[in-house]
């Protein structure tokens, strides 16, 4: 899941739903929506990804403070 976020960095801001759909596409029905929810929580809690916001929330790689504004 982290790979997908890393791949699309700078290209497209992914939403939680996008990640869930991508996971289902890759692994089929063996991953449930609940699994994906837990996996996203793990990515965020570990600090490997962060939530971003521009008119809608997305899951992104961490950036330096305020960089988005410069």
């Amino acid at each position, binding site marked *: 899941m982290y790979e997908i976020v890393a791949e699309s960095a700078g*290209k*497209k*801001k992914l939403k939680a739903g996008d990640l869930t759909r991508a996971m289902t596409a890759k692994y089929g029905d063996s991953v449930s929506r609940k699994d994906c929810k837990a996996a996203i929580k*793990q990515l965020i*809690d*570990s*600090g490997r990804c962060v939530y971003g916001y*521009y*008119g*809608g929330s997305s899951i992104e790689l961490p950036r330096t403070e305020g960089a*988005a*504004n410069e």
Partner: protein
Amino acid sequence: MATEVERKTDIGPPHYEQFLHPLMKANYGNWKYHETLKPGVLAHTGEAGTLYTVRCASPRLASTNFIRQMTALADKYSDGYLRFTSRNNIEFLLADKENIDPLIDELNQMNIPVGGTNNAVSNVVHTQGWVHCHSSATDASGLVKAVMDELTDYFTSEKLPARVRVAVACCLNMCGAVHASDVAILGVHRTPPRIDNETLPNLCEIPTTVASCPNNAIKPTSIEGKTTVTVDEDKCMYCGNCYTVCPAMPLADPLNDGVSIWVGGKISNARSEPKFTKLAIPYLPNNPPRWPEAVSAVKNIIEVYAENAKPFERMGEWIERIGWPKFFDLTGIEFSKYHLDDFRYAGTTYRRSLHNRY
């Protein structure tokens, strides 16, 4: 995973029960009726007794000092119990009727008006404006202060035909109930976003930015090999949606930003159905610190309503009874092409009957 000790998350708010006045607990779900003792003072009665509510204004943008002043009053008069209303009023909850007048005296000494009940102008629901918001076309706190300085008398009395709900939002995002208020002041931009072609390619996602426009006015383009966007200025209605998703398209324009005035919305289902506010005045200038044009426009509308509406008739119900042409007539507001809708549901606002008054 993070391994910090004792870091709590997802606990939610404290349970409300610990903040309920003992009489609220005793009469919970078993209240019989309520009365208004005078403007700003309510009495709710149930089998366990009567609870008195004293309602006063607040600036909403309040310092910790102000809140501590209020909690000190609560400690003195209402056993430490107080609450806030959905319109930013403060309510002290009193078991002892004898405490009502001393509390009101203290509030008045602090220049805090008591009122906002029933057929009054209640406190204003408003947004952040220049105090905290990046997309605001005007200030909110200052506008509210300037308007309410002129309407305080309608807050501390109940002399209007019905309640009048005033709201202020500083841009079309309307982070307040502007679209369903008796009178609303809405900050407006009047010029298209200015595109920063230097930063846009790095800051913004092009497809998202293009898709953000409700009128399809934004198209991708290439400048010096970098992908950016252009705006079809004839299609732009200055909603600011693109700026929300793309910071490189600011709309703020000191020369042209200002406010519009809206009337006749309502939320409650009493008598007639909930309704949207409708445009009264398309543009008035931003004129800080006291916005005299906006203030006198709002005051005029409320005074004409007060003079002409029947008892318990809300602003929108009054206008529907007399008809919109008469509203423009009585208020002296000019009707213009800007009052004609041209967005998604425009046709629903055109008159398709001969029910005109001559």
